């Protein structure tokens, strides 16, 4: 197997890596860099558990080859601050049950709120429509995103 050299910035840190040419971004993150917060569910672009932010946009890391990510900036769940507003809102609103979908959900929510601090319910549902959750029935996730938006706007989240 031939290796390919790539440069990527992950969570603010520059990496220069040799990767197998058929390696997926998710394998690079989980297996090589031990960033195991990114989850693999379906491996086919359906569930969003593997969501990361690449070049400012959410993508399924199971559908990106590592060599394609050369020269790009990536944010994974590990790149989100410990006391992040979105994370806290998820916990407070009970939007986390088994937690498998949570890293992807939080990144999808971040990507929405980075552009739009005043999303309608419909916009929130659309933004997380590529992320499946088997546990919560989504309503609590939507409330958590609403609350995070409000807190980010400077309200008290209630």
């Amino acid at each position: 197997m031939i290796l390919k050299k790539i440069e990527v910035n992950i969570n603010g840190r520059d990496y220069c890596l040799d990767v197998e040419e058929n390696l997926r971004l998710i394998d690079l993150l989980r297996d090589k860099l031990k960033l195991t917060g990114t989850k693999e569910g379906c491996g086919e672009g359906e569930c969003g558990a593997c969501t990361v932010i690449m070049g400012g946009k959410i993508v399924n890391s199971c559908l990106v080859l590592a060599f394609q990510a050369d020269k790009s900036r990536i944010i994974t769940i590990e790149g989100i601050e410990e006391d992040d507003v979105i994370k806290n809102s998820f916990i407070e609103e009970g939007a986390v049950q088994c937690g498998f979908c949570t890293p992807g959900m939080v990144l999808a929510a971040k990507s929405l709120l980075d552009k739009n601090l005043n999303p309608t319910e419909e916009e929130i549902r659309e933004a997380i429509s590529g992320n499946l959750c088997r546990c919560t029935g989504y309503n609590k996730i939507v409330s958590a995103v609403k609350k995070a938006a409000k807190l980010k706007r400077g309200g008290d989240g209630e």
Partner: protein
Amino acid sequence: MEAIKPKNLEEVLEYKSKYKGDAKIIAGGTDLIIKIRKGEENPKALIDISSLNELKGIRETLEYIEIGPATTFTEICECILLNKNLKGLKDAARSVGSPQIRNRGTVGGNICNASPAADTVPPLLALDSILVIEGKGKKREIYLKDFFKDKGRGELEGDEILTKIKFKNPLKNQGLGFYKLGLRKALAISRLSFAVFLEIDEMNRIEIVRIASGAIGKFPMRELEVEEYLTGRIINENTIEEAETLLERVIFERLKGRQTAKFKSIAAKGVFKKALLNALYLCKGVNDFEKN
């Protein structure tokens, strides 16, 4: 498998001429990576065009709107050059999969993957789009409607790639409407879609109409018989109903013998009507015929 990330189009064509069909272009990878992992594709080399600026973006020339094949669905949705008369193209791009898929998946991949349910293909067919296809030292143009050869297969030689999609920028009294049945992620059978391009005069006479269907046959295609029926007629409830009936018959005939023939031909009527009314609305700014 060799992974290649060329710096420009020239390099892409160079590699393609060297490897021919053994090398596959990878853009968003949302179709290809799944196929490789399932063992349905086994290319010797992958040539990545997903970050090649030369093949990305939307431009306006004197006559045409030109779209780079590596332009993502999200970029189409957000493009201000695509004005309101082209709403059908944006609606189709917006209807694709999920935000994650729209952020990676490209219009060129949608065309070249040649799936019957490729959502941006019906609107591009209704716009009578032209594909620019290049290989090392060669370049040709082909109408999108002549591109598809079979399910999953477009008319590309081993050393060729799609480098541009272009169509005439619609005039004020022209509009492109789109409608897709059912929810996304629903069964493939209910991914049925229609795109209608319409030009009408002040008397509501149809000057130009192009109709394209998705997820009905082996690939998205123009509905020429219905186009012929409608051309030159005054658009009113009566003509719309006649066109719907004709469409139902044409599709039933095409799918005859298949289990889905009845369902699809009936469903197609309603989906077609919505796409037509959407187009009409863009031409006139009002909706005279929507009752239900």
